[in-house]
């Protein structure tokens, strides 16, 4: 291991337990790193280093007394600014929430606090998690630590960039159409979108409620399993939260993949894959076979319609969820002569271009005369997609694809072309529509930029997902770090 800020959470946890390092020392290393690179990367909207310092001191005090300070104690974390943090600014990347200070914690934050949460800051994101590059943040873009001219992905780009740049050890993101997996892939990290309902959405600012999930962004699969085990589980305050036992993911992750059946949906291997991504995929498929898994091309014909259905369903839900930003109870208000004028002006000034586009799109798709043709039809297509996955998982243990058809693109490259931007989520979106879990792990480089392998699993079968991810991680042996020069190595 090199610097402390480059370590994995589980390594630091063991060092803390053995008293080889203190939580304050770890935080100091991360804080120095933030000082060194944050100006160039801009991972954070709000830094919470004083609070982190208090948490680190508490962790050290507990350790000195021989008490367990909790599994998250002393491990600096970046938290996507979509999660409500009591007493700490929560902007969601939007002007409309630039002064919003929640009076309660999201359930995942509350849980992590009990486990010793040491939060470095609230990470940058596309406004209301709408975007694939973090360029839609009202507070300016985040840059990719591997190449500062490129985007870190999105919408959890700040979370991923912070971990890749050494400004945090691990992070929380949220994923509605790929917003954890795609930035993890662009930044050479592990990112997992849990089964819909496994992790509480209470205190997660809503984008598309039937698709949103909170999940980990980490440096390896073990950290991913660890952080998932800390945030998963039933929450009475989220009525879509599932009443299930959370398995021991760290144990479940071991055991290899011999004899497993791996399907490769041909619909996710078609257009737009760069040569490097295709090459990485082919190498991964060969590794699967070397590890004793059976690999087969699979047909899930309705995945071809997933992107179209998603860009009706997600904006429709968003247009309804974002109706709450009216300048009355919280957030920005622009005064007007009457109520209607206040609404119109507040929302005009408070929302950025992409959010307005999606509100318009969703409102259109839900409006009288178009509802059946767009929203109704998209919901039926969603049923067909679910059916395809259900059938595929009768035959396969997991399905695999690239996480994104390309590595990280340049800043500004797609920002004026919404459709091109949407296409970068073509491989991740079907997973959200079906509510199944999926993980992205780094599997190679193209022109010095990380490429991600997406592994998709059955509903609530995160255990198998992590087991496959762990075996592949070991066999792939991805050790690359962001380079000096064009990156922040």
């Amino acid at each position: 291991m090199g610097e402390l800020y480059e370590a994995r959470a589980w390594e630091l946890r063991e060092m803390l337990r053995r008293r080889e390092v203190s939580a304050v020392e770890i935080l100091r290393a991360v804080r120095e790193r933030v000082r060194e690179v944050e100006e160039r990367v801009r991972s954070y909207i709000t830094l919470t280093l004083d609070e982190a310092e208090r948490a680190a001191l508490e962790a050290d005090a507990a350790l000195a007394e021989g008490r367990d300070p909790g599994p998250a104690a002393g491990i600096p974390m970046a938290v996507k600014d979509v999660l409500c943090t009591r007493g700490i600014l929560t902007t969601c990347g939007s002007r409309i929430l630039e002064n919003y200070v929640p009076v309660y914690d999201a359930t995942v934050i509350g849980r992590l606090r009990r486990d010793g949460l040491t939060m470095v800051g609230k990470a940058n994101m596309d406004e209301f998690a709408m975007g694939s590059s973090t360029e839609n943040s009202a507070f300016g873009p985040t840059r990719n630590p591997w190449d500062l001219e490129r985007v870190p992905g999105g919408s959890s780009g700040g979370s991923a960039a912070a971990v890749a740049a050494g400004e945090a050890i691990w992070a929380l993101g949220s994923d509605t159409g790929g917003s954890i997996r795609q930035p993890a892939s662009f930044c050479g990290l592990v990112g997992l979108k849990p089964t819909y309902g496994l992790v509480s959405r209470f205190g997660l600012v809503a984008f598309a409620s039937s698709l949103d999930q909170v999940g980990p962004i980490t440096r390896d699969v073990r950290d991913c399993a660890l952080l998932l085990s800390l945030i998963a589980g039933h929450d009475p305050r989220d009525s879509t939260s599932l009443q299930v036992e959370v398995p021991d993911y760290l144990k479940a992750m071991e055991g290899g993949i011999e004899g497993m059946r791996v399907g490769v949906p041909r619909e996710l291997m078609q257009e737009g894959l760069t040569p490097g991504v295709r090459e990485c995929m082919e190498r991964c498929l060969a590794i699967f076979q070397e590890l004793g898994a059976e690999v087969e091309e699979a047909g899930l014909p309705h995945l071809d319609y997933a992107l179209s259905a998603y860009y009706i369903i997600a904006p429709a839900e968003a247009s309804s969820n974002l109706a709450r930003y009216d300048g009355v109870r919280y957030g920005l208000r622009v005064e007007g002569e009457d109520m209607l004028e206040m609404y119109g002006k507040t929302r005009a000034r408070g929302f950025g271009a992409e959010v307005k586009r999606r509100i318009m799109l969703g409102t259109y798709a839900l409006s009288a005369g178009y509802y059946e043709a767009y929203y109704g039809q998209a919901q039926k297509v969603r049923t067909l997609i679910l059916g395809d996955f259900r059938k595929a998982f009768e035959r396969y243990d997991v399905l695999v694809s690239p996480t994104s058809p390309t590595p990280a693109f340049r800043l500004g490259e797609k920002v004026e072309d919404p459709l091109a931007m949407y296409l970068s989520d073509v491989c991740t979106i079907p997973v959200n529509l079906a509510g199944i879990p999926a993980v992205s792990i780094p599997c190679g480089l193209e022109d010095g930029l990380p490429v991600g392998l997406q592994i998709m699993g059955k509903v609530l079968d995160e255990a198998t997902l992590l087991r496959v991810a762990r075996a592949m991680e070991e066999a792939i042996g991805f050790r690359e770090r962001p380079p000096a020069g064009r990156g922040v190595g």
Partner: protein
Amino acid sequence: MITERDVEYVAWLARLELTAEEKERFARQLGQVLEHAEKIKSLDTSDVEPTSHVVPLRNVMREDVVEPGLTQEEALSNAPRRQGGYFAVPRII
């Protein structure tokens, strides 16, 4: 094909004031995205039930007991304008 008139109507439904430039740009961009979405219309879904949610949804009830909630002060703490313990708004009619 989305006209600027369509855009104006939808913006009114969504309570969004748009500039002339935004109207022109959104008409074009929404047209592009909807054209892409046309693809789903080609599928025969006459026998397919819609999915609004992937988990089996039932009403979730809890015991009818008083639990701590937000105080009035907390609930009002982010209000842009307040008066006498209420949210204050401009005239409605």
